[in-house]
């Protein structure tokens, strides 16, 4: 699998997206903290975190005896640059032009 495949696979699951949202709100959380917000066993959360780590969407750091989970936004940015920008650029530009035109004539 390429890096992109890992990222798309990791994002194709609502629990994993939920975990990313939790880390986006507050980074550097332990497994116990993340687990307490999900209706899921510790083992289940660990499995999902492992998939996120394999895709490098989550990076772990040791702090004393704790393992902290951090959101790494770079892979999503690279996917955005590669897959989203390319297809939305023209449409967004057209809308921006329309907005400028309408506001100028208003």
């Amino acid at each position: 699998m390429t890096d992109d495949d890992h990222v798309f696979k990791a994002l194709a699951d609502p629990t994993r997206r939920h975990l990313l949202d939790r880390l986006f709100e507050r980074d550097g959380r332990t497994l116990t903290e993340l687990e307490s917000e999900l209706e899921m066993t510790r083992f289940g959360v660990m499995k999902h975190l492992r998939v996120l780590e394999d895709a490098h969407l989550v990076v772990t750091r040791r702090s004393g005896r704790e393992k902290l989970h951090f959101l790494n936004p770079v892979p999503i940015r690279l996917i955005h640059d590669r897959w989203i920008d390319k297809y939305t650029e023209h449409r967004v530009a057209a809308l921006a032009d329309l907005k400028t035109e309408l506001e100028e004539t208003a």
Partner: protein
Amino acid sequence: MTTMTAQATQVYQLFIRATPEAIWEAITTPEFTIRYYHGARIENTPERHLGLGPNGEVWGDSPTLEWDPPRRLVHGWQSLYNPEFADEPSSRVTWEIEPQEGGYCLLTVTHDQLESSPKTAESVSGTGWMMVLSGLKTLLETGDVLDPDRA
């Protein structure tokens, strides 16, 4: 979208197809940083991290805390590029370069100790570090300066 306070510890990680030496040179030499680092001329030495703007204005001037080429660089950070938060306390930036299989390196940038510097934290988060790092990746993987073999 949820509003949020920028994190006091920020971790950015990416693969770059380049040698550790090439990455090290690109992050420590002003001739390279000017091409991807918001136009800043940044010079890292064993003693100091110095960043200059296009007109020679000082954007960053902090001590080097660890210097282990081509694997690990730790330096202080003060946001002198913006008078609004130039007086926030110093934070810390760690660059770690780990060689991988297939000619890749894993680069991890950790910006931490931002607890008392919320404006700086906000300023470097989001697209701040991301633009620097994706620019660095593009320069190293497609630029003909650092890798003459592929030019």
